[in-house]
């Protein structure tokens, strides 16, 4: 894993812990199957990501799978080009 990815993954884990108050072990903790991520938590997570990465996440092409874990979120942000502007 690249240092940028590792840093972003760690940042997202912290967001999940601090802003959502969810107890996640690490970047691979499954938020969907574990039932940790409900509608309210997802809204708070989207707001936290948009604020932290100064981006607007898509409205229509929004796959819940991207939010399965901190690692998947990192991959999603990277593929969306969000990380390029923050970590050139």
């Amino acid at each position, binding site marked *: 894993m690249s240092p940028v990815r590792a840093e972003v993954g760690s940042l997202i884990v912290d967001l999940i812990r601090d802003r959502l108050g969810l107890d996640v072990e690490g970047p691979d903790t499954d938020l969907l199957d574990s039932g940790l991520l*409900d509608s309210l938590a997802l809204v708070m997570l989207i707001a936290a990501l948009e604020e932290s990465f100064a981006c607007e996440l898509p409205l229509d092409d929004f796959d819940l799978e991207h939010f399965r874990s901190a690692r998947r979120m990192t991959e999603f942000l990277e593929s969306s080009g969000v990380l390029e502007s923050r970590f050139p």
Partner: protein
Amino acid sequence: MSGIRELRRDDLPAVCALYEQVVRSGSTEPSEQLVRYFERTFFDYPWSDPDIPSLVYTDSDGTIGGFIGSHVRRVRWDNRPLRLACSGQLVAAPDPRHRGAGALLVRRYLAGPQDITITDGATDYMRRIWIGLGGQTHASASTGWAKFLRPAAVGGFLMQRSGHRFLSRSLTAVAPAIDAAIRPILGRLGGFLPPEPVTTAEELSVDGLVEQVSDAARRLRLRPDYDPKYVQWLFEELAAVGFRGVPVRHLVRGRSGKVVGWYIYHLAERGIAQVLQVAAPMGDTGAVLDHLFRHADVHGAAAVLGRVEPSLIGELRQRRCFLVPTDWCLVHARDPAVLAVLGTPQALITRLDGEWWMGHHSIGLSEKRHPPMRVST
């Protein structure tokens, strides 16, 4: 790839199956009436707006995992036409992989091209989601009021709602006698029972409502932009929502014969009457409320419930109405000036203009239908 797209007519069987399963009977076989109801309220109603459609959340294989209903209303703000979107039925499939679909649907809906978005039947949980998405609580409209006419009957109703069948049946049986004993005392205390009104009423017609709201434009900064086709549809749908009782629509005239206002409510004999709209643009709100309360009382209602509109608050207090909890009314608008007007007496956006009154959860369920009753003016 999963995602959100607009609801199509051929999605209705799947959407209704999901709604039937999650919200209604638990069956995955929706009634034909429900499918027809969704069709006419989403696609075939006069103000259906393709720019602000109902939405579905689909999995990568095309399976529908959630949906949100859209009910668009037309309003005027300082005589400028605006589109008001009512965020309606919201359902997500119960399996864990769809757990966040509801929030994604609300988020997408709020980002639509409408000027104002409201929902007036929201739960605490939905309120928190809306607030997280930039929505606000419409404070007065999230507060209910109650005019108690037959307190013992209300007690029976509350027992029934809280699942105390035996207590409910017992209290309901003796309620008429208790109320008969209490009501003369309430009458002597003053303000508790509605007096004989000094006004008269006639049925509020489709054209009558359109005309009255249009005439009130000079006094209202934010109001519905009713037209006959829409109001005709609205009145027919009010009648189709059978579980709340009989819809009553009255135009109220003063002694001189001049119109002082109007009201629309669902009347349930020995039950709870639910007010949808009370308006008195000339300012005589008390006279209109008096007629409404008297009408409900004469027809046997146990209580009249409504939500606190800014124009009503002073008159409600004078008439010994109590504040009671009700569903949350939430609003979202990009222009804060619109939100500011919503909370003033210069706005006439009532329950009639939301989706609270609609009968998604009861259509086609005969056991929820209120028995027919005779209603006079």
